[in-house]
């Protein structure tokens, strides 16, 4: 049994700064996400939210500051290594592998714990057979949980948009993450789909006991789900607190509505 | 879709397995030539010369072997200037077309693997043009009509030292062309052994399809050699000589038999006048059979034959002579082919248009070479004849 991790944050970001050329996309960003938390990150367009996610998932290397996943610093790690530490994410624009079956989409995401390489796949060793069977079984189970089994042999591009979102989340969860980053999960969904999405995220949060951090523009999604929200604008943190506090925070209102004091 | 695939594959297999028709009273000779690919002109010249010879003999009623007249049938196959294609082509000629002997391939890249196959299958092959020793080495069934680099190299060296009074030289050759490279290396070795180490001031190379040689020439001209040795194909010679003149070089060039094409002068023009090269025969001032060949070829195809044409004519002539030497064909392929091989060995002297030749034990010809000079009229005039000791 592992040491209880109650007190250790799943994600800790210290003084994170990111420069693109002369542009400062993120500046001095700090956060601690405790296990089981469901937190939100909001801000106007171009505020640097996705950049933060890209930094956390290892897609960019931070100019300054440190990111720790469960106490492990991710500096210098390639994205797939970060993912193996237990960080999964979805994308603003759905990025499924469109010409690979739904089942294969889940299977390929198991690369971090394949436990075999080219040689085993060539000779079809015992280990290969065992691992492939396990992966196939787990993938099937996962699809079943998400009620996607009927689509297992379909190509994602042929699925309705809402289902694609769901599949992308399922794919992210298939790597058993400690931390799930959702980048605008409600984008492009209609209102009934949004209600279903809220239920889904809530259910995932309980069912998989995963820490969730999400970016979202739909305020009702954020307000209904998140216990803590952080607001950034031009890379700077401008507010932090629970939904109610954020709603009434003057800096947030200014950032969203503009400084229209006459 | 399904049906399409099935029909396609079946028809393909059916066609490939198609049975060949065997005609009586004809002698079939295969030609394995480079008609497409890098050097289409070589294949074309070979084909033209062979066609002319065939028309001659068939026009005279056919080839008389052992008292019986046979019509000639020449089968031309394109080996696309590719080694693998040369092998399948050879096998096709040997097995499917059942030729008695094969002429070609001309270029070494094709001639070596094709020679292997011909030797394994015991069919006489004669390459008109290949100069690489490996083509015929340890292959009793493989012959050639051209002389080898170790003979032509000294020809160029001796002539240049004697006539140009040259003390230094430079070489520009084609790196990817084994003929050019081989000759360049032999030349360098010999020249330096005669004139002292370092007397070859520059030893530069270029690629097969290059068109610009200014960098190499700048380097060569800066070294100020007495002359430039240029064992290159005539089309490149034309460009190289022109560019050297444009870069201000006024000295001599010495060439090899690959210069020997009438096209050289159409391409090169006045820039090449006065230059020398070693070759198989001098077209200008030729006499007898050679003269006749040149004139008829020129009349038929409206250009002076190049060395490949002349060598193919001779190579084919040698094979026909060997067939006659058999003293009669049995119609049994294996036996006839063997008889032709013996017929080849039995040739003590063949007087071809590129000179008199006979074959040594490796299947290489022993014959004389000439050095010619390009005249104002663009003719290749006889200058000196050199025979092997």
């Amino acid at each position: 049994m592992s040491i209880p991790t109650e007190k250790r944050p799943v994600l800790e970001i210290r003084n994170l700064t990111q420069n693109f050329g002369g542009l400062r996309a993120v500046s001095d960003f700090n956060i601690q996400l405790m296990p089981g938390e469901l937190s939100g990150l909001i801000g106007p367009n171009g505020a640097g939210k996705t950049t933060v996610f890209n930094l956390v998932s290892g897609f960019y290397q931070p100019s300054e500051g440190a990111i720790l996943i469960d106490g492990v610093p991710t500096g210098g790690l390639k994205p797939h290594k970060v993912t193996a530490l237990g960080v999964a994410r979805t994308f603003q624009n759905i990025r499924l592998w469109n010409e690979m079956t739904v089942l294969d989409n889940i299977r390929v995401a198991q690369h971090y714990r394949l436990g075999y390489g080219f040689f085993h796949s060539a000779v079809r060793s015992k280990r290969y057979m065992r691992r492939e069977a396990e992966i196939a079984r787990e993938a099937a189970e996962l699809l079943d949980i998400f009620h996607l089994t009927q689509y297992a042999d379909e190509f994602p591009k042929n699925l309705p948009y809402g289902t694609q979102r769901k599949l992308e989340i399922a794919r992210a969860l298939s790597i058993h993450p400690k931390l799930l980053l959702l980048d605008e999960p409600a984008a492009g969904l209609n209102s009934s789909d949004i209600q279903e999405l809220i239920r889904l995220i809530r259910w995932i949060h309980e069912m998989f006991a995963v820490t969730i951090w999400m970016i979202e523009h739909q305020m009702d999604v954020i307000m209904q789900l998140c216990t803590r929200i952080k607001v950034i604008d031009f890379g700077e943190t401008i507010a932090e607190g629970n939904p109610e506090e954020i709603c009434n925070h003057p800096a947030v209102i200014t950032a969203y509505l503009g400084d229209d004091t006459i | 879709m399904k049906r399409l695939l099935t029909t396609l594959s079946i028809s393909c297999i059916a066609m490939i397995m198609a049975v060949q028709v065997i005609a009586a009273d004809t002698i079939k000779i295969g030609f394995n030539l480079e008609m497409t690919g890098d050097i289409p002109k070589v294949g074309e010249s070979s084909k033209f010369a062979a066609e002319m010879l065939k028309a001659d003999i068939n026009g005279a009623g056919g080839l008389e072997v052992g008292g019986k007249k046979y019509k000639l049938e020449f089968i031309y196959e394109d080996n696309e200037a590719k080694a693998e294609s040369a092998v399948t082509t050879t096998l096709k000629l040997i097995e499917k077309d059942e030729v008695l002997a094969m002429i070609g391939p001309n270029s070494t890249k094709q001639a070596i693997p094709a020679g292997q196959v011909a030797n394994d299958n015991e069919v006489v092959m004669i390459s008109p043009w290949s100069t690489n020793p490996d083509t015929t080495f340890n292959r009793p069934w493989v012959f050639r009509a051209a002389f080898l680099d170790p003979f032509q190299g000294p020809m160029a060296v001796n002539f240049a030292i004697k006539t140009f009074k040259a003390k230094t030289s430079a070489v520009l050759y084609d790196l990817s062309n084994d003929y050019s490279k081989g000759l360049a290396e032999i030349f360098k070795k010999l020249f330096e052994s005669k004139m002292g180490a370092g007397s070859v001031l520059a030893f530069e190379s270029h690629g097969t399809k290059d068109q610009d040689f200014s960098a190499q020439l700048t380097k060569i001209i800066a070294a100020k050699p007495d002359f430039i040795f240029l064992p290159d194909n005539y089309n490149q010679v034309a460009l190289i000589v022109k560019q050297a003149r444009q870069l201000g070089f006024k000295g001599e060039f010495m060439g090899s038999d690959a210069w020997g094409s009438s096209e050289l002068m159409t391409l090169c023009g006045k820039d090449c006048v006065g230059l020398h090269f070693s070759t198989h025969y001098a077209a200008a001032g030729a006499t007898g059979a050679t003269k006749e060949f040149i004139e008829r070829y020129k009349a038929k195809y409206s250009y002076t034959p190049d060395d490949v044409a002349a060598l193919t004519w001779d190579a084919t002539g040698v094979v026909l002579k060997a067939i006659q030497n058999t003293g009669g064909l049995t119609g049994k392929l294996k036996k006839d082919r063997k008889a032709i091989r013996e017929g080849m060995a039995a040739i003590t002297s063949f007087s071809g248009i590129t000179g008199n030749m006979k074959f040594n034990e490796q299947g290489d010809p022993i014959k004389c070479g000439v050095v010619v000079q390009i005249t104002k009229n663009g003719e290749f005039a006889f200058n000196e004849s050199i025979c092997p000791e």
Partner: protein
Amino acid sequence: MENLVQNIINALQWGSFYALIALGYTLVYGVLTLINFAHGDVFMVGAYIAFFSATFLLTTLGLPGWIALALCIPVTMILTAMVGVTLERIAYRPLRNKGAHRLYVVITALMCGLILEHANLAIFGASRKAFPQLIAEHVYTIGGVTFTNLKIAVIATAFLAFLFLHWMVTRTRVGMAMRAISYDKFAVPLLGIPLDRIIVVTFILGSGFAGLAGLLFAMSYPVLEPYMGALIGWKAFIAAVVGGIGDIRGAFLGGFLLGAVEIMVVAFFPSTFRDLIAFTVLLLILTWKPTGLFGIAKTTKI
């Protein structure tokens, strides 16, 4: 020193041809992201068209050289442009309209090139053609450096062609439409720009300049053969990519860069190592700058 200057002139002349051909590659690529592998052979066709028109003008009509040249330039450019447009109309466009993967169009282009080469071989035979001399050649020697009027003309033409195309692409309506297409092929028709017409213009420009290159090439290296465009075509493609394909400046610079690398390697290293060193240099450049010298790094938006 003289050698260096001499080699710089050599490199400029040789690079001019790469640059002129690479311009055609890059224009078509910029608009269609199509590697037009037939371009080298269009160049060859240009040289042959120049040959036939020059011979006709000189021998049949008996015009003086400079008039023949003056007539030859437009004739060659127009006829070659027509060849390019024909290829686009009968081979590329139908495939594009069927929504084929772009690499299938590339392979079709490769096939078109083969057809051009071998049709030429089949029709005109394997004999090489000698290009007639249109203008008298003068060799000038200044301080040990030798050059000819033709070389200067070639280099100047390459620069003029570049300036013209650069002006065309950045300053004219058609050019702007071309650039717009390269940014977003789907939005452009919505803006009322006729996509197919712009593509045709692109092919006219690209092939026209290939024709000009063919004429100049035939004048500088007066030996024509059906395969003459294959190798130089490949190399010009390499030059265009190293410069940053899709960008006119990139193609121009890439052409001169490749010319310079090839000439300078020969000048200062054993010439047998030319391909080895030249291509290693290119490989390193592309490893160092993965989108070529002028190519804009495509940022992946997540």
